């Protein structure tokens, strides 16, 4: 099982964000059904561990993924990039077959 990983840049930012926030176990990554192409990513601070959570550690950051979401994001790398004035997290997901124009939702 490959799980999910963070790029080094993403890990550095997540650590920084959690430190400033003052609490948090790590990052929760998942998918939900919604959006124009069927699925949407979920990216949240994690304060609690749920029963069906799978844990991965990447560059020292704990990543929590619920068992149902994992098949859709297996092997994904989360990166942090800057585009013009905007900056944020980018999902490099090998399972994606189709994305909506803005990339906020996808199909597998």
């Amino acid at each position: 099982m490959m799980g999910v990983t963070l790029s080094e840049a993403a890990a550095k930012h997540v650590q920084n964000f959690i430190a400033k926030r003052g609490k948090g176990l790590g990052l929760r990554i998942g998918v939900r059904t919604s959006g124009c192409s069927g699925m949407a990513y979920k990216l949240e601070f994690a304060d609690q561990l749920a029963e069906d959570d799978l844990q991965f550690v990447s560059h020292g950051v704990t990543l929590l993924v619920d068992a149902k979401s994992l098949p859709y994001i297996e092997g994904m790398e989360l990166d942090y990039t800057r585009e013009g004035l905007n900056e944020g997290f980018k999902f490099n997901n090998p399972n994606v077959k189709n994305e909506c124009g803005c990339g906020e939702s996808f199909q597998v």
Partner: protein
Amino acid sequence: MALLQISEPDLSTAPHQHRLAVGIDLGTTNSLVATVRNGISVVLNDENGRAMLPSVVRYAADSSVTVGEAAQIEQSVDPTNTIISVKRFMGRGLKDVGDTSRLPYRFVDTDGMLQLRTVAGVKSPVEVSAEILKVLRMRAEAALGGELVGAVITVPAYFDDAQRQATKDAAKIAGLNVLRLLNEPTAAAIAYGLDNASEGVYAVYDLGGGTFDISILRLTRGVFEVLSANGDSALGGDDFDQRIHCWLLEKNDLSALNPQDTRLLLTQARAAKEQLTEHDRTRITAVLSSGELVDNVLTQDEFQSMSHNLIQRTLQPLRRALRDAKLSAADIKGVVMVGGATRMPQVQQAVGEFFGQIPLNNLDPDKVVALGAAIQANLLAGNRSGDEWLLLDVIPLSLGIETMGGLVEKIIPRNSTIPTARAQEFTTYKDGQTAMSIHVLQGERELVSDCRSLAKFELRGIPAMVAGAARIRVTFQVDADGLLNVSAREMGCGMEAAIVVKPSYGLSDAEITRMLQDSVQHAQDDMQARARQEQQTEANQLLEAVQHALVQDGELLDHQQRSRIEAQMTVLQGSLKTEDTLALKRAVNALNEATVSFAQARMDKSVAGVLTGKNISQLETK
């Protein structure tokens, strides 16, 4: 693809549903925009990495508007049309502003708020501020990758109703939805209070570019309460520049200068002030339009002595604020420094001595207000869960109505927490009186003439009774933005009249609508100008390319083909000189069409050129 941000647990939004909200510090000298990203409040920089947008707007004769640094550079060249410190004029009449002889503007005194005559027409301070807000809105939308649901805009605690309403109107014209107006010291307290999780009574000493505010705040378990607010709405960093400016005039024996030279010396004075924060002495040089040379060395000691009484002027409101809060300097647990002018060592020292402690300054004093406003905006937009906190603010000046003899009866005393509602009963003073005029005032003085008139309205249809028999209940309601709603009701028959206070500075809804339309109109003009610019560039490129091709491969064309192309080129050159974008587009297309077969022929020729001169074996090895 879209870039995502980390949400709080269970608060991930559906795609395209992100509630992007920003905090804006609309300052006298500089303005900033901030947002909460991945749980942290950050100031958004422009494409050059600059956080602060100078609050400077320049109007040009062709109605184009420049904002910020670019406008600031033009200050000394075109002072009359370059509006700086417009915040001082927000919701103010000419008589409120005081001595205008030193200001390089052409004022138009209208009922209520003054206006400024520029080369692009008469502008209200609301429109000028809207230009600044527009730039910040566009910066935020570019940085966040979407449309904003709203903004929290900060105002000095001292701002009265007219000034607050003017700020809201400016936001409306700039296309911003105002989630709330927030007092600047409260925003600073939010930035410090949350980051440092401190409790206790704090003083916020805010010496900005054009205003001085002192606020006494109590922070308990995440609740912010403003105990008292005081200040001087005409004192700030600009005045320190002015002192240096006057000193330069004296030193060089200069009398009245033209607007360009005044602006130039003020710009140099400001640079000198900033230098003296880090250095003991600085040199000021300038060449005036007369050719006269200004070259002086200013030392920290000289600057301190010339600005001594300015700093003393900040201590007086400080004492009053403490008195209002029924506290002494010793009760203050910490002092928050806000505003770039608090970087001056003599300010830090005077404040430190007054409170007997070193002021807090671990956040950037220029950014702290915007950072706090962003946190509040994030909360109001619904992007935060759990630990919600209440925000209590106070009314800076008492609100009341005029009674017989030109006296003011206070209905809501100053420092009441908002939102609030208070009512008081009044009666008629003449037998058979059937109407009553309600004159709403704001201020601490007893006489109507000394207070600020906010609105007037009439309650009619009071049943005729003997004097003193009618019971008229006047209700004042102040919403969370500090805006006032007044209603009057005759208790016997139930006749009612009400007013939302805002027209006091003279901008009617119709005028606001016109300004909104103007700004939309301009957006269209801007777009057309841009489309035309692009079309022209394309046309020029095409002409150049065809010209080049004719010179190179002209022999590929027969006489008829050639003259057809040349005719289309002449048409295109002609339409480049006109204003008609559509005709230009048509001419570009026509020339494109006319050259299709020519382009084909050239392509064939160049392919042939590659092939000729090479033998088969060379081609095969590729």
